[in-house]
């Protein structure tokens, strides 16, 4: 069996036609993961211990089970206790919540890098808890972790083919249908790979660029910390 250019050109638009659906699902799930991830971060730091502990348990549980199993759980198992979603919502929620556990870890690392003195200054200026988070801490915690956040967008994008398991017509599902109808899989599946490459590669370049920029920012904070330590040494 050899590569059939005519067949490839003929089916390309059919497979590529799923592009808006794939992008939509990726962005939808990503927004869920950004927002829910932040909520998880706050909940984990809550001074109400049962909430902090339950959140920790939830994060560990979600991370240590495969997304495909979670997808089946949401789409096939939840309806039996009266909670049902259409396949798109189920897909977006599952991927979004799965990745929110990773995003919450990214947020956490950014937050822990903010010096303790910033929290204390915020208190001394009498900011409320909310003002402290949104005016003082997050604006310093997030920029250094933007590249990491971008990476998870790519990883999430590459995870969308699992949604074919519940019949979402993304790239792989389309290719699989075409392959089955024509008994030819080489071209459609190759096209799927190509589409992922075409979309991922430019995004990866963009993220790389962001990373270089934020490293420069990070260097200046590192320098500040180093200088502070030198002062301490001089003093002591």
């Amino acid at each position, binding site marked *: 069996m050899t590569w059939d250019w005519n067949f490839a050109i003929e089916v390309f638009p059919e497979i590529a036609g799923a592009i808006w659906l794939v992008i939509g699902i990726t962005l939808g799930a990503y927004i869920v993961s950004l927002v829910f991830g932040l909520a998880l971060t706050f909940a984990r730091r809550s001074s109400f211990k049962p909430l902090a502990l339950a959140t920790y348990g939830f994060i560990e549980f979600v991370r240590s089970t495969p997304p495909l199993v979670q997808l089946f759980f949401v789409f096939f198992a939840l309806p039996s206790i009266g909670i049902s979603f259409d396949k798109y919502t189920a897909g977006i929620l599952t991927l979004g919540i799965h990745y929110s556990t990773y995003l919450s870890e990214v947020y956490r690392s950014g937050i822990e890098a903010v010096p303790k003195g910033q929290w*204390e200054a915020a208190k001394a*200026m*009498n900011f*409320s808890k909310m003002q402290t988070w949104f*005016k003082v801490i997050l*604006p*310093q915690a997030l920029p250094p972790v933007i590249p990491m956040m971008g990476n998870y967008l790519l990883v999430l994008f590459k995870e969308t083919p699992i949604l074919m398991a519940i019949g979402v017509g993304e790239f792989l599902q389309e290719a699989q249908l075409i392959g089955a109808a024509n008994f030819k899989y080489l071209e459609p599946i190759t096209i799927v790979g190509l589409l992922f490459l075409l979309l991922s590669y430019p995004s990866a370049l963009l993220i790389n660029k962001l990373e270089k920029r934020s490293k420069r920012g990070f260097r200046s904070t590192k320098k500040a910390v180093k200088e502070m330590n030198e*002062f301490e040494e001089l003093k002591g």
Partner: protein
Amino acid sequence: MGAIEKDLASKDSLSTLVRYENVTKRFGDIEVLKGVDLDIKPGEKVALIGPSGSGKTTIIRMLMTLEKPTSGVISMGGEPLWHKKSSSGKLVPADEKHLRRMRSDIGMVFQHFNLFPHMSILRNVTEAPIHVLGLSKEEARERAVDMLEKVGLGDKLDAYPEQLSGGQKQRVAIARAVVMRPKVMLFDEVTSALDPELVGEVLEVIKDLAKETDMAMILVTHEMDFARDVADRIVFLHDGQIEEQGTPQEVLENPSSERLQAFLSRFLRN
């Protein structure tokens, strides 16, 4: 409360702004403060001196509500800081709402400035007046510019903290605290992180401020000449206890306790 008691209480709160009553603090097994009693009058400038590790920073951090006392009562304007009177009149631990209300009378300048690095100098100084005090943008800006000019930084409004020298940063930090108009300002060794040639400019700013303000100040410092110039009273802390206190004259020139004498002589030698 009877009429006479009430009268006494209000007189008391007039003559005392901050009161520490038998305050102790432990970090784990170490007792850092061993029963501190200290009264500060409205407008009074108090310098806190003592060897490293004697608990000076801890004393003022407890007033800023950054550290919770292990026992004892700290009050501000006659009202307990870390406690609230419950409906039955008993003192119960304060909630965040109470702490936040009390904090509005207290300001602090830190050793390492702790400016907000992502905000311009102007925003560092206007952010809290706008969002905490509820001033209009114009009012806040006016107050901030006025204060920044006073500390000699009227031309740095749009700069960012990383573009300033240590001395300039610390002057911004002072302006940032003063615009909130607290009743008491806390200074924790605000010049000890500075290059020696920048210390003077910051001390000058504080001296000027002390002269013209009716805010009370508690100044932790190792600069004895500065303490003499600025303070109404010097408190010497040793090993978690107040060992001696008095006017600058009494404390610096006629120290009575041996420990204070030793501390001062070590100081003058260095």
